[in-house]
């Protein structure tokens, strides 16, 4: 029998605010001593008054709009109860039945083959603290609690069970992260825990309408882990069905080192969250005008930008996709095009940015914004190349030097003698010297072997270390050859 996986993802993303969700403690706690970025509110002391971070609501709304969601005119916070020491209040302030945004979608793939993944909801909540599990010499197991992360604004983005493979799950998260970064809502950095993912996975026989028993996989901390864990879980479930054991609805954790998912104990009451409306936080409303304002402030999204690059600059879909992978790269490319002022084709710029320049920054693991080749310098180089002042080999050498030092490409070309020589008076002597040294080729030409011209041009290029203009070299060679022929007895 063949089976079909059904996958839905819950993605948590920290919002890029300066202060926390309900208090004004700083979110810049990376590398800080434990519990130095906390106050009675984010430490869950009784009797405090939390106040919603306005910026967090704005960023969450941006995300909702970017994911094509309906923004709720009125939303509310609720208390989600579960007892665990990373949650100092005994509940997490979250949104339950009135979330900020509902019913959106993300489109995967490009024009060739598109897949639409539905978004159920986007809601705001707060991050938890962090626990370190320890054991004392006497064997007592205890936990150390650091609440610096407690109360950081968190977004939960829940997809429909529309995902059909592990690869598609990875693509979905990659796309989501790209959008979050474009609109500056989250760093999306999975290594730092700013983006985290849980996956709901089930399998069913192809053609069956009902879903199979659903397994939730926790602890997916990289796009690779997402793909591997889901791949593993699909295989495990199919084997369990075929062996007749069946699949049990449960929560499993991904063990990255071992490459397996493992059942977690004690989860039987996990859904018993006893939600109720948060009495300390009044509802939030979103007017049409405020929503419109946030919409207008939204950066151009990656899909739209990719399509614009194809239409406006005549790029191939692949080039456009590569150049719009991050907003920084797309901005860089468009700055180069602007600097060129149509003195060289935008496609030439695309080739050089995604080819040689990407090659250099990727080799050094640099962000393009940190490269010493500014858009202005790259435009200078491309203009010289396009105008025939330098050839492609020389341009590459100039790029590497400019990348290393930030010096002007023209300066580098002049200093290293890379400028093309198309001046007849400068090339004439070289051409005559080449002819003198190659009497056999000259004789062959006179016998009608036109091909030797190519060989002779090659000799001129060698003599000039590649800087001679091929056109000028050809013209001069033909002049000399026909001249000496006419003069022959």
């Amino acid at each position, binding site marked *: 029998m063949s089976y079909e996986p059904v996958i839905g993802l819950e993605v948590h993303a920290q919002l890029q605010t300066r202060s926390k969700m309900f208090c*004004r403690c700083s979110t810049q706690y990376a590398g800080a001593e434990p*519990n130095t970025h906390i*106050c009675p509110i984010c430490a869950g002391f009784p009797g405090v008054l939390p106040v*919603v971070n306005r910026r967090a609501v704005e960023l969450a709304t941006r995300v909702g709009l970017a994911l094509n969601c309906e923004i709720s005119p*009125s939303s509310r916070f609720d208390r989600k109860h579960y007892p665990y020491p990373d949650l100092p209040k005994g509940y997490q302030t979250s949104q339950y039945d009135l979330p900020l945004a509902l019913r959106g979608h993300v489109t995967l793939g490009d024009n060739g083959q598109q897949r639409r993944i539905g978004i159920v909801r986007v809601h705001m909540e707060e991050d938890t603290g962090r626990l370190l599990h320890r054991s004392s010499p006497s064997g007592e197991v205890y*936990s150390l609690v650091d609440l610096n992360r407690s109360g950081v604004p968190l977004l939960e983005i829940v997809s429909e069970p529309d995902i059909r493979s592990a690869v598609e799950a990875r693509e979905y998260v990659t796309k989501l992260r790209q959008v979050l970064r474009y609109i500056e809502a989250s760093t999306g950095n999975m290594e730092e825990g700013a983006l985290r993912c849980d996956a709901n996975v089930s399998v069913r026989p192809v053609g069956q309408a009902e879903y199979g028993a659903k397994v939730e996989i926790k602890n997916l901390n990289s796009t690779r882990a997402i793909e591997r864990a889901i791949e593993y879980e699909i295989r495990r479930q199919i084997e369990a069905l075929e062996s007749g054991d069946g699949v049990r609805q449960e929560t499993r954790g991904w063990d990255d080192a071992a490459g397996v998912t493992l059942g977690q104990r004690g989860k039987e009451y996990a859904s018993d969250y006893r939600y109720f409306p948060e*009495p300390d936080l*009044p*509802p939030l409303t979103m007017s049409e005008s405020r929503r419109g304002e946030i919409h207008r402030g939204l950066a151009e999204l990656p899909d739209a930008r990719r399509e614009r690059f194809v239409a406006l600059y005549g790029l191939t879909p692949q080039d456009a996709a590569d150049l719009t992978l991050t907003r920084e790269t797309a901005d860089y490319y468009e700055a180069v095009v602007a600097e060129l002022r149509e003195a060289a084709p935008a496609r030439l710029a695309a080739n050089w940015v995604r080819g040689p320049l990407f090659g250099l920054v990727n080799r050094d693991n640099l962000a393009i914004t940190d490269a010493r080749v500014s858009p202005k310098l790259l435009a200078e180089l491309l203009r010289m190349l396009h105008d025939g002042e330098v050839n492609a080999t020389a341009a590459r050498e100039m790029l590497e030097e400019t990348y290393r030092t930030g010096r002007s490409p023209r300066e580098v070309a002049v200093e290293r003698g890379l400028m093309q020589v198309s001046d007849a008076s400068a090339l004439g002597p070289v051409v005559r010297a080449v002819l003198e040294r190659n009497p056999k080729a000259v004789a062959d030409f006179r016998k009608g072997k036109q091909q030797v011209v190519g060989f002779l041009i090659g000799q001129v290029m060698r003599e000039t270390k590649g800087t001679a203009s091929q056109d000028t070299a050809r013209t001069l060679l033909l002049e000399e050859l026909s001249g000496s022929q006419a003069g022959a007895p």
Partner: protein
Amino acid sequence: MELTSEEVRHIASLARLGLTDEEVETLQAQLGDILGHVNQLNELDTGNIPPTAMVIAVQDVVAEDEPRPSFPVDVMLANAPERKGNYFRTKAVLGYET
């Protein structure tokens, strides 16, 4: 309003409370009374009243995203039953990872 003893034990386990059989019996009666009292309110006809989560008419109370100094760590840890360095120290709760 009747609660079963299983329901009382379940609620207690959610709050991580261990109850004796006598306590289950006592709480079964007390929680039942509370539920019964709340259920009386359900007898009111609220068909014409929009649902509300807030009894006072405020909305959209927000603060600007301007960080302010946090509390000194010693103040925050002053009432902690146990501390280790700058950490709160607590019994390990395993099997409930989020």
